[in-house]
């Protein structure tokens, strides 16, 4: 039966079920990722942010919430200028972080 509408999907994040595998892998190579306090300096200074929605803060949060698709989309817009690395007050090597996540996605791509 077509009712002309469906059950709207939930936007809620269930922490019991989030996939943290990528976050854990990234943590191994870039442990400082845990120090992020979501200040947003990285996004504020990012030349790609204005045009593409790229945000290192959101990338880290996305990893913590298992939102891999969104993370991947954001990262595709990074130009690796390194400005976020300069401004991070918690000393997170954001460039290394970005490259590590991208490398993981590439590896997954190759496996396919």
């Amino acid at each position: 039966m077509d009712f002309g509408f469906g059950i709207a999907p939930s936007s809620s994040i269930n922490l019991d079920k989030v996939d943290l595998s990528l976050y854990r892998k990234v943590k191994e190579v870039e442990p400082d990722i845990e120090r992020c306090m979501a200040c947003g300096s990285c996004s504020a200074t990012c030349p790609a942010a204005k045009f593409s929605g790229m945000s290192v803060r959101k990338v880290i949060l996305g990893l913590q919430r298992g939102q891999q698709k969104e993370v991947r989309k954001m990262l595709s817009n990074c130009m690796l200028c390194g400005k976020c690395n300069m401004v991070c007050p918690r000393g997170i090597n954001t460039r290394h972080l970005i490259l590590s996540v991208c490398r993981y996605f590439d590896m997954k791509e190759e496996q396919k």
Partner: protein
Amino acid sequence: MIYQGKEKIWSDYQKEIPDDHWFYARSCIRQNFFPASEKYFLTICRDLLGKDICDNEHHTTCGGISYHSDTIPQATAMAIVARQFSLMTEAGYKNLVVSCITSFGNYTEILETWREFPEVEARVREDLWKACRREFEKPEYVAHASDLMYHFRDEIAARAKYKLVNRQTGEPLKVVEHIGCHYAKMFPHKGVGGAEYPCVLSGMVDSWGGKVIDYPERRHCCGFGFRQYLVKANRGYSIANTYKKFESMAPYHPDMIITNCPGCPYFLDRWQYVIAEMEGKTYGENGFGIPALTYEEMAGLVLGYDPWDLGLQLHQVAIEPLLDKMGVPYDPSKKYLGLNEKDLMKPELPKNLRCF
């Protein structure tokens, strides 16, 4: 769950409910959705308990449904409510008992608004006088009809023919209680038991032998949400909320749901058919749904009224498994016979949700 903790909260939220002499404000939609509920409220209160309840043919919708659907401003709702009060005053009553939850919320909200802004009340009095030359006194007590049923729960229990108990196993029936949002969420002190852990329905269930289920999405909206349903583009949100509730209550295997709102039993009943069609999922035993009843229907069953006189054939979800559990007798051949044995005609049966 610590029952004593709830009892402590309930003791903080008791409201005064006079025993007798009420002016009854009917609902505009309940008579279509669950047509016998209001009739049996009157039958139970008047004929069985001997109470004086005034049922006035001149009153109208309270305007609450349009107000909450964004189609009339509050000023209009206030003028309508003022007219209802004038009918009550004219009939010589001071206690208002309201059938519908949104009406109850509407009356309460308007009275609270007038208390805080007397100039608004003065303006409404003027409007009413200009429009229809009527004057009114405000009610001394406003109760929802379920408050009154809660108030009389032990008297009903004393007259009970059937209990909310599984005849075969002797176990209490597992009952989900669902409180309409506009009952106490706006004014927790106006509801019996408050807004977080209301006891208006759970008190009846306890008193009539059932066991209340407190499941994680108990406080969540039934899914009606007015514009969520009324605007077709939003219906996906409406049913998503209902779906969320059913998924949350499913592990407890409830035998029935009781509600005190016009929209809630309707959506908790009808959406079970739609969920069954969309997802192939049913929540009762053996492919049936979970019967969703109004508190009057539940009281009616407990008191031994005929299920078809109570209008239970108008539910989407089959009521028979519940009647069998309670041991309530019924004649399947009379299910679709109306007043004076008029044939109401058997509806087409759904594909996924088992019905009779």
